[in-house]
């Protein structure tokens, strides 16, 4: 399992920019928002937590099809399926690799981009915490979507259509934590709900993803 994880990480670092792409996309989205809504500081600091969450979510979405696509094309996914590892384990490792290469950099970059959006003082901590809690859920849910569309030729758009509605609860609670944190309100309830969704998704969805992947490899 660890070998698979290391292999995935190495591949994503080496294989032409997949690693930094999500991060660059996150940066561009955050830079574009002030162009869209105007440079007024008060407005920006008000919407900053939500914009950071949406940016992270989209950056996450963008890199999802890389989870299985390459392995599917060169046939190594079939090899993995016949390996002694259970499919659930493979799926979880893939999600973890996706999180380390996409989610974690996003979490670390969020406070820096928060400066650009004049995020309120108290917001930094909560944006980072909510993203750190929420992005694993995004990766796990995204892995499910990627597994659903793995064999399809032009699956990218379809996958967005499938995955985005599934992201709704995570986004709502995550952005709520960040927003309340930035406003200096109590964050316990949404934080607990976010954690619940995140851990629940991590515990249950690998089974669904594995089932889907088995069907697709049939």
């Amino acid at each position, binding site marked *: 399992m660890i070998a698979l994880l290391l292999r995935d990480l190495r591949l994503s670092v080496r294989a032409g920019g997949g690693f930094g792409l999500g991060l660059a996309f996150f940066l561009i989205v955050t830079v574009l928002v002030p162009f869209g809504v105007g440079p007024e500081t008060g407005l920006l600091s008000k919407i900053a937590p939500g914009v950071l969450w949406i940016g992270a979510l989209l950056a996450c979405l963008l890199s999802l099809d890389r989870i299985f696509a390459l392995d599917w094309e060169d046939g190594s996914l079939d090899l993995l399926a016949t390996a002694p590892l259970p499919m659930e384990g493979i799926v979880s490792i893939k999600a973890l690799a996706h999180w380390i290469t996409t989610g974690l950099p996003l979490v670390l970059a969020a406070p820096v981009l928060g400066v650009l959006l004049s995020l309120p003082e108290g917001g930094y901590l909560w944006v980072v915490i909510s993203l750190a809690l929420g992005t694993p859920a995004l990766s796990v849910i995204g892995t*499910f979507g990627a597994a*659903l*569309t793995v*064999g*399809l030729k032009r*699956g990218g758009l*379809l996958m967005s*259509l*499938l995955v*985005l*509605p*599934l992201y*709704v*609860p995570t986004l*709502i*609670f995550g952005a*709520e934590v960040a927003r309340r944190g930035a406003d200096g309100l109590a964050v316990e*309830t*949404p934080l607990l*709900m976010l954690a619940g*969704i995140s851990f629940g998704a991590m515990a249950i*969805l690998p089974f*669904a993803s594995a*089932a*889907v992947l088995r*069907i*697709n490899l*049939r």
Partner: protein
Amino acid sequence: MSIWEYANPVKFIRTTDRLLPWLSAGAVLCLVFGLVWGFFFTPDDFRQGSTVKIIYLHVPSALMAINAWLMMLVASLIWIVRRHHVSALAARAAAPIGATMTIIALATGAIWGQPMWGTWWAWDPRLTSFLILFLFYLGYMALWSAIDDDDTAADLTSILCLVGSVFALLSRYAVNFWNQGLHQGASLSLDKEENVADVFWYPLLVCIGGFVLLFIALVFLRTQTEIRARRSRALLARERAV
């Protein structure tokens, strides 16, 4: 005699063929009767004026939008557990109907909201969760049409339906938490505290019955179509193979 006999496509088509005329006649009758009754022969509400007449379309379509998804969920479960093809095809047949019902509920809601709340759209929990439900329908239908192999498509969509149900429910509560609404609470709950008045209630009941019958008739018809389309494909494939 058990319900699983109807998992046989031939038997399903034969039975539904017999039932379909009755169901469609019932649906038309109920809808015409209920809507005419509601539209022409009910008084205006003292606060909402004549807009209360929209209820005869809004509430039944909203009900069916949710029930169609539930039916798809049950059909998907049956497909996963017992692998009856009719079940998977029925789930597929129901999705466009559910999506249409969702649009009707949203559209009538918007038209109703405009004079009553002074806005076409508010990010109210009920409205928002219906919009999310609509997105789920879209994704489900898109996945069905994207996959060529029938069995694979049935497997994948039924798992999507299961996962989607969990997340749709989660979204419902998330959205509730996220914003307080303009929308009134349940108007048809069985404990009759703040229900609609009887004058509106009886025609509404007839309309709901009409929508239910319409839904069943359409599901039967569309499932038959799917079964036949599938058989055509199978025959063609066999012909080519010979």
